[in-house]
């Protein structure tokens, strides 16, 4: 039982560290390949450990049971550190690269990251993350075949631009609006 638990805890930690939403005990038990009862006990042990109640130091993060699941959060007393850091870090205006990527998404939506990357001829992963974080774009739907996420703009962008709907975006020259289509329109000539 002791060796069981000692290898179960690291497995739970591995699962919890990558989880981006609270994980239910059953999901954790399935992931760790251990019975629910043991998992529940191990989680309680881990929570106490992170809280410095098992002889080790109090960690900068804590394990909390929220909304029927378990998740690692920044320790509440340290929230101020993160708030200050985030407040000082994020630039108050978007970079040129972010603005251009946003423009591509606005006119091409719904569009995948790789499609945007192809148009911009650079990797846009970081910029897309920034735009998502800013709430200017949002995930719309995953491609049923490839699973690639399609992005579109939000009402926050409309608000910033002072328009009511995406149809009110100024028309841009159709010749330039899609390099990848080539000159399909000329085929009939």
């Amino acid at each position, binding site marked *: 039982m002791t060796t069981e638990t000692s290898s179960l805890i690291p497995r739970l930690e591995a699962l919890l560290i990558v989880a981006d939403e609270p994980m239910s005990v059953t999901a954790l038990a399935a992931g760790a390949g251990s019975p629910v009862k043991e998992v529940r006990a191990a989680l309680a042990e881990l929570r106490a450990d992170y809280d410095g109640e098992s002889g080790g130091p109090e960690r900068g993060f804590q394990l909390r049971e929220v909304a029927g699941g378990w998740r690692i959060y*920044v320790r509440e007393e340290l929230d101020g550190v993160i708030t200050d850091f*985030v407040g000082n870090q994020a630039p108050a*205006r978007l970079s040129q690269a972010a603005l*251009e990527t946003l423009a591509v998404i606005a006119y091409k939506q719904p569009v995948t990251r790789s499609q945007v990357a192809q*148009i911009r001829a650079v990797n846009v992963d970081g910029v897309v993350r920034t735009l998502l974080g800013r709430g200017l774009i949002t995930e719309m739907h995953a491609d049923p075949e490839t699973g690639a996420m399609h992005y579109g703009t939000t009402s926050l962008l409309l608000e910033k631009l002072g328009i009511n709907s995406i149809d009110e975006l100024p028309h841009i020259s159709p010749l330039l609006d899609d390099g990848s289509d080539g000159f399909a329109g000329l085929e009939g000539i």
Partner: protein
Amino acid sequence: MTTDPAGDAGFRVSLSNFDGPFDLLLNLITKRELDITEVSLSAVTDEFIGYLAELGPEENLDEASEFLVVAATLLDMKVAGLLPQGEFVDAESVALLEARDLLFARLLQYRAFKEVAVWFSDRITHEGGRHTRDVPLEQKHRAATPELKWTLSADDFAALATLALAPSEIPTVGLEHLHAPQVSIREQAAIVVSAVRTNGSVTFRELAAGVDGPGIIVARFISILELYRLPPPAFEQLEPLGELTIRWVAETWDDEHLQALGADYDN
């Protein structure tokens, strides 16, 4: 055929001081157990060309890509050999020595990168299986991010989109500066065609004789390569790097063919 591009089943060489797979020869040179100046380039070249002749068209691409470097280097050397070398008696052997150095240097270099590419592939595959903590900011922290300063109007935004959506080309390298006096492949091809048609058979040495400047010789050589893509002439070269003879065998020929010649080189 084999995953080892130049292993036992691959390209072998038999020289006075070495007999075995080409790959081993390169290894010995790398480890300095064989002096590169003692390796006969012409023997390696002969064996290589013999080996290429035996290679079937469906040989594996990996093997082909390694020999592409050999072939490109040999071609460079051949072109270099066509350029005037000066009047020194030793010029040819000096050129040969340089060519040998170049061939082996390029091969060793290419092989080093090919080997290290395997390391890149292994590392990328391995790291691709690693998992990082990558979790979005909690809402309460996200709320702390400074408010966005937004200055663009809808029209500014559209202008930006037009710019961003314009097909972007990878900037190309300007070659203009390399062609100080421009030589037209088409013009040179016309000269070559007329010389071959008039005489029936011409050697490249004759075609290059009395020409002013290496650029024109190179242009005439390229125009022969271009002609090779069309039916007209027949080529004869009895041995590698030997005399190249061009004979006219075309039955139909019109100036349209000439117009198309060298089109790839127009820019």
